[in-house]
């Protein structure tokens, strides 16, 4: 149940890990596609929050090449539908997210990422 929408907001929160800590890198993932209601208004509202490069790279890594490398200036329905599919219908069910900086691993099991830190990792 980690959708790419949340993955795109998630940085590492381990102690002292404040730069180059995004995006968390997926490995050994199991993906599930689940249909969700198309809501163009929500998407338009959400676009400014997206880190585009991270989203496109992650989507491509997971085998979805529907998004352009550059964020388009013209937002049409086709684009929004692709974005909808990537952000809200692509779920990572199992796997690991690794911080590019400190290499902390956040395991995902049953769709739930374990974000708990050990005592020495707490900021």
């Amino acid at each position, binding site marked *: 149940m980690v959708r790419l929408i949340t993955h795109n907001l998630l940085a590492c929160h381990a102690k002292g890990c404040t730069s180059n800590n995004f995006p968390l890198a997926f490995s050994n993932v199991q993906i599930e596609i689940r249909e969700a209601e198309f809501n163009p208004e929500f998407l338009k509202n959400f676009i400014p929050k997206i880190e585009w490069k991270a989203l496109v790279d992650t989507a491509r890594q997971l085998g979805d090449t529907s998004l352009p490398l550059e964020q388009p200036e013209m937002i049409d329905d086709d684009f929004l539908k692709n974005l909808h599919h990537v952000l809200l219908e692509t779920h990572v069910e199992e796997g690991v997210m690794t911080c590019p900086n400190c290499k902390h691993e956040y395991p995902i099991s*049953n769709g739930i*990422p374990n974000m708990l830190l050990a005592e020495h990792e707490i900021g």
Partner: protein
Amino acid sequence: MSRPELQAPPEIYYGDTEAKKYTQNTRNQQIQADMTYRALELLSLPEDEPAFLLDIGCGSGLSGEILDEEGYMWAGVDIAPSMLEVALEREVEGDLFLQDIGQGFGFRPGSFDGAISISVLQWLLNAETSHPTSSPPHRLNRFFTTLHSALKNPSRAVFQFYPSSDDQIQLITSIAQKAGFGGGIVVDYPNSNKARKVFLCLFVGGGGGQQQVPKGLDGEEGEDSKARFENRRQKTTKDKNGKRKNVKVIDRDWILKKKELYRKRGKESVPRDSKFTGRKRRPVF
């Protein structure tokens, strides 16, 4: 029975049995739903903008189901695996995270359009270990600071919680303020012992007093909820003869047994045992 947060750590208190009981109790569902609707009202989100919300201590998704119905997108975090499992079973739409809010968030700045939290904050007032990062002020500070940054400007975070003293309210609000939040406490039905509800309404930005602390509710509704609260109490803790039922003994042995069980079942994140495990839990004051 003393308050749940004084009995055991949250991920232990809300084990499989309690998580199911908590979620299936229709009266509890009703109360949590009422408070969720009220929290949404206090969030006062702009109507024409579909929002992305954070549910802090989302538990088994009782609030999340309402967020789904109301058409919000959301993510939820909770420290109790058993509660999250129930949320999965109930097929809520939001993304769920196993997370200790006292350790802070890693969400990028401005991620959420608002946050709600129903019946959770009082859990942050107990120290789990003697480690400095485990002290309530440290955890509250980490929580509010990282939450503040995860919220967009302007926005709000609304918490319903059960403080057990004015000092607790004072501690929480002062740390929230230091973290950059404006806002304050809203008390609904302040004159009703049982229906009284405390909300912490925090504001991000909005400058120049534009965001005003909303007024609490008062009057007759309070009487209704009062009756409801009283009924609930009788139902859950007393049987027909007025005897307590279902009083389970939560002591060190019981907690260690539970932790062992969780570890076996692959819940890796069970906190390590310490000499404090199973000690009497008291609020900081």
